[in-house]
């Protein structure tokens, strides 16, 4: 939990049904979030806008979830949710505020039905393979790690190798088994 801003009163736990006017950092009622299809053939999507009255020290837990948007044709939509696995709460705080402002609930498990997964670690392959049509993942898929440079390969600097031999050492092999270590 982040530190409460100076002067703020103790607050009750976040309540997903909290009305906007009761939001501690929001004043006045706000219309529901909006959706649209911007160009012909594009899919209906949520339109994101800049959060009003948002303070830099506002913890996401204090931000009520806004009424979700409706589909352009009035059809029913599913529950909007996000999943964030960041261990550093402050690093995803502003993102969570934005998502809650647009009708997204937080879910605590990867197995829940989320729409956006803000991944702070390396995403599991099985998770990528199971993505549904409406799901988006900000993934951290590492590339297939390039083979390490040979010790002699310090081009542009005094080297034991000529460029011709150096050229033969790089770019011709690609490891498909070694993966970059996690960060």
């Amino acid at each position, binding site marked *: 939990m982040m530190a409460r801003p100076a002067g703020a009163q103790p607050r009750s736990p976040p309540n997903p049904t909290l009305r906007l006017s009761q939001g501690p950092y929001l004043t006045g009622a706000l219309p529901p979030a909006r959706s649209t299809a*911007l*160009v*012909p*053939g*594009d*899919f*209906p*999507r*949520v339109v*994101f*806008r*800049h959060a009003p009255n*948002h*303070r*830099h020290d506002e913890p996401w837990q204090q931000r009520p979830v806004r009424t979700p948007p409706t589909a352009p044709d009035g*059809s*029913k*939509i*599913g*529950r*909007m949710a996000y999943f964030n696995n960041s261990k550093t709460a*402050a*690093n*995803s*705080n*502003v993102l969570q*505020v*934005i998502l809650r402002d647009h009708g997204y609930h937080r879910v605590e498990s990867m197995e829940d*039905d989320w*729409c956006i997964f803000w991944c702070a670690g390396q*995403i599991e*392959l099985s998770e*990528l393979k199971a*993505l549904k*049509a409406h799901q*988006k*993942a*900000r*993934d*951290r898929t*590492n*590339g*297939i*790690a*390039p083979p*390490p*440079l040979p010790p002699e*390969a*310090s*081009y*542009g*600097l*005094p080297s034991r190798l000529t460029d011709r031999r*150096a*050229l033969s050492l*790089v770019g011709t092999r690609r490891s*498909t088994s070694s993966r*970059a*270590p996690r*960060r």
Partner: protein
Amino acid sequence: MTLKSNLWSCFKRMQVRHGAQHFDFMPPTFVLPTQMAVFEDHLRSRGRTPAGDKDVWILKPAAAYCGRGIFLHRTKREDCESGGDVINDAIREHRGVACRYIDPPFLLDGLKSDIRLYVLVTSWHPFTLYLYEEGLARFATEEYDTSSLDKRCSHLTNYSLNKHSTKFVKNTNDEQDDHGSKWSLTAFKRRLIQELGEERAAQVWRNVDDVVTKALIAAEPAMTEAMRTAVPAAARGEPNRQCFQAFGFDVMLDGDAKPWLLEVNLDPALRTESPLDLKIKSSMLVDLLNVVGMPLPPAASAAAAAATQPSVPMAIVPMQELLAPRPVNAASGLPPPPGSPMDTGDSQRGFGSTLPPPPPMAPAMIADGALMPPPPPPPAASTMPAAAAAAQAVSAAAAAAAAGPVGNESLEAAAAAEALGAAVAKLVDAAFAARGEAERLYGLTDMEKWALHLVNCEFERSKKTRWRRLFPSSRSSEYFQFLDPSHRMHQLPFDV
């Protein structure tokens, strides 16, 4: 590429393959401990030269952040000449990279700085790259001075390090974005114009675009391969629409205002410790979500129904087919005539396909659940006049709308706005018709049309944001030579 050693490896490969005249934006680097002996040899030989004993090296751990574990090193000339140790125990134990220190750096008010750029990759194949127009400039808090390498707050610009300095000045007003130890990128750009003049400053930012684009192109083959391994749709050669990557690029300018890539962060800090932080990072995220495009989730009943439906066979040509040799008439060396036994429908679907002509595409759930969009409208006979007429209509309507209502004539204003909307719609239609024409001329496959459609839709969305697409762009042709030619979708006729 977000590991310093991997980034250098990718860069080095491109430098060897394409020449240092194209890839010259990273300082010479040694990966330690792998290249320890070479590094030692290099220090010794450089140290004996007149300029070499002034060389400073910055040693960074392999995968740390916030300035942790970074230190500077300078070899003494007497050690080089006497054959003594040119590296110390700290270097021997170092696991990471040693980079030649960029000296002198570009100084503002005597302080060193670097810039944090936000970069978005929405697809690796076709390669689709955006750069956010706003970012942060971070300043060291002590005057630059190479006589002392121990002053970390003079040489390192990491915010997390400098904020603990007594000389750190916090920005408390997002309207004053050129105040304190952290500025907005816009403020930095303004100052750069003052320092260098408009023309030279513009060239600096053009070079920065180049650095970002080439750095990611260097990683593209590895990332495309990884996506093919991880994502079934990518393995089938389909364009990506479900994963995106947001990077933080750290770039600094040297004394000649040449940009150098310091590192790439895969999880850029989104912590908001000041109103300026909030303004920049929240805008970036809102715009990012709009560019990526968050689809509305289907209702539970619709999702359940879709799950029970058998998947629709894909009307898509696998990439392997695309890349297969094109059949030719042995006698003439030309492609077979339409309708002949050898004809594979190239003229409609691109070369090399041996599949039967695909059925018309319709919105459908395909095997991995990716929503396939409807095809673009059919090509018009002549689209350019329509586009020109629509553009004229937009100009006229915009002029009417700009004139605004006189007195209380809100109806006129509404009519003008309506006319503007209709004209814009016509323009969009004309653009789509032109795109259809381009597709017909290029003879694209359905897969390629799909990729074209997705990337163009995304581009339309990006126009309302501050994400500027670097690739594809009007500069694409400058970069084709560095891209894997077997990845055909990089060169599709995208809207730019």
